[in-house]
């Protein structure tokens, strides 16, 4: 089997298997799985709403998927994308509010920098803790997620909320910080759909991550650290530096979710905005086989599901949009347990041998 087909085959099996298990669950609660799945996936292809919203939902997932990917390639598990994107989104809004009077030519780059640098900073913390003290990045990123959420919620509630506003959100950012929605330059595409330039930035990041990891010395060293740390160290690579670098890049990528959310969508920081983007990013990276192209495909799938969830909620009797999370969980379980399928196939082969 050619390499590409093999790379595609396994994720495909995992997705199909997850849909079968999900279908059984839907059947058990008394709905028709085919109807539910048509609602879930069919709506994603309509123009302009289905496609527009799917691409919009895919944007943060591409960023977080890439973030998890870069960590993985260095042998690190960044469960902290959720915290990194919260910190970054708040920092983006802070710059957009504080320097609201600046010209767009300065304000937009400043906001971008805020998102990238604050994400990188929050991501680098567990990197430093691992490099310096050897403490496990999984635990530290989990802990830092909660700290990040509490921290930005504090700043929103006590310092940046418009007095009297019952919603936990900051005041709005300056007009100059807004980035264009697709409606501005795509004919026939309504501006109410929040798909914006951040989507193109996400695609650009896929290319950049590919170039960074597979075409630069830094990327090579990160991958060497990921695939065999002791050999890398023997070869003169400083593992500690690579760990911090990979976590910072990972955090920066997660942080760019703030650009989509704050500069292209809500134009303010809205507390609790993330629909588990950081955790879904894990699913995206794994299903995408830790490759930028795979990340795009997986992000599109999960985004389509997320958009379709609304229709399932509205038009089916028993099934709710929670089916999306259920499918996601099952997909990751199947992707993680690759050996399960090999075992399944192996058993069939040996059974056939027995019969023969």
């Amino acid at each position: 089997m050619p390499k590409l087909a093999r790379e595609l085959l396994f994720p495909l099996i995992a997705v199909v298997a997850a849909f079968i298990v999900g279908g059984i669950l839907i059947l058990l609660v008394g709905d028709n799985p085919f109807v539910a799945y048509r609602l879930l996936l069919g709506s994603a292809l309509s123009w302009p709403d289905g496609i527009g919203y799917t691409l919009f939902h895919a944007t943060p997932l591409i960023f977080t998927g890439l973030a998890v990917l870069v960590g993985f390639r260095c042998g690190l598990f960044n469960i902290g994308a959720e915290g990194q994107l919260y910190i970054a989104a708040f920092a983006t809004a802070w710059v957009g509010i504080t320097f609201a009077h600046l010209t767009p030519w300065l304000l937009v780059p400043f906001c971008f920098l805020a998102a990238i640098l604050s994400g990188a900073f929050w991501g680098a913390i567990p990197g430093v803790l691992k490099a310096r003290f050897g403490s496990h990045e999984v635990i530290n990123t989990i802990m830092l997620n909660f700290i990040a959420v509490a921290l930005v919620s504090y700043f929103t509630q006590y310092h940046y909320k418009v007095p009297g506003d019952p919603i936990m959100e900051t005041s709005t950012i300056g007009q100059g910080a807004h980035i264009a929605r697709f409606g501005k330059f795509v004919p026939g595409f309504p501006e109410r759909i929040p798909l914006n330039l951040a989507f193109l930035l996400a695609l650009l990041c896929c290319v950049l991550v590919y170039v960074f990891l597979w075409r630069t010395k830094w990327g090579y060293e990160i991958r060497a650290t990921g695939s065999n740390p002791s050999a890398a160290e023997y070869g003169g690579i400083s593992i500690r530096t690579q760990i911090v670098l990979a976590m910072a890049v990972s955090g920066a990528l997660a942080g760019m979710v703030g650009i989509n959310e704050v500069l292209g969508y809500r134009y303010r920081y809205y507390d609790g905005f993330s629909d588990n983007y950081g955790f879904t990013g894990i699913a995206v990276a794994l299903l995408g086989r830790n490759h930028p192209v795979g990340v795009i495909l997986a992000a599109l799938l999960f985004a389509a599901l997320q958009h379709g969830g609304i229709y399932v909620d509205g038009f089916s009797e028993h099934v709710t949009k929670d089916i999306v999370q259920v499918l996601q969980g099952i997909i990751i379980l199947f992707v993680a347990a690759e050996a399960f399928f090999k075992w399944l196939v192996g058993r069939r082969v040996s059974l056939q041998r027995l019969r023969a």
Partner: protein
Amino acid sequence: MRDIFTISLIASTIRLATPLVLAALGGLFSERSGVINIALEGKMLAGAFTAAAVTYAADTRLGMGNASPWVGLLAGMLAGLFIAAIYALGCIKFKANQVVSGAAINILMIGIPGFLSGAFFLSSGSTPQIPKDHLLPQSPVIIAIAVIVLVAGIWYIVYKTPFGLRLRSTGENPEAADAAGVSVSRIRYSGVLIAGVLAGLGGAYLSIGQSSLFTRNMTAGRGFIALAALIFGKWRPVQTLLACLLFGFTEAVSIQMQGVFKLPSGEDIPVQFIQMVPYVLTIVVLAGFIGSSRPPRALGIPYEKEK
């Protein structure tokens, strides 16, 4: 200052710490056997939802009255066991990455309770209210006694029984344990399954003890606080209990003390800073700033038996 440490604060510390203690001690069995358990949150959610749903059904549909919370409690433990069985199968038999599988269980358990409550109760993620007199006993004294007995029992199992010795050696040095004739995978299955039962129990206590229904994502990160307590308690039962009490206390303070303490500037101490305490402490202790907290040596590494 004296008013702060009232009986009611102590009582609410015990109440809030209980689900943490149960989940954290569950995590202890799993991690001591060498299997990372970031899925405590998902297992607690499974226990909480199942317990509330079954208690409600037993109460209203089957008319079981006072017995219904106990049926619910049992069901919650079984739900934790069931989820743990899936996790164990993936991690131990199929050598799946333990962190990935744990994350998958957590995501799955955000969805499943909502999915099922939408189907069975036509609600958006919560179960119907259970009558107050059909809940678990809530007297802090009874709970405190139950928890102390449990911790003592677990301490005895971990340190004084052959099973405990095998558990610890499997987590520290699976090769040596294997060479000594211990079945590494059997010990790990037991560790993970016990963790599921205890985390399910902790979740059940949350929905049919502290509360009277299941609400969407009601654990709100308690599974991770339990994990934090386990690390802060250095993977030891008594220290873990103390860590849970400390974290339960911070939660009790953040609920009861709003507006009581003031900063020098006259502002309230923001509740967010009290909420951060367990997480910050965990990072600090894991980095070795306050004593060292060293995980079991083989934690997170699937065991490959040598052929």
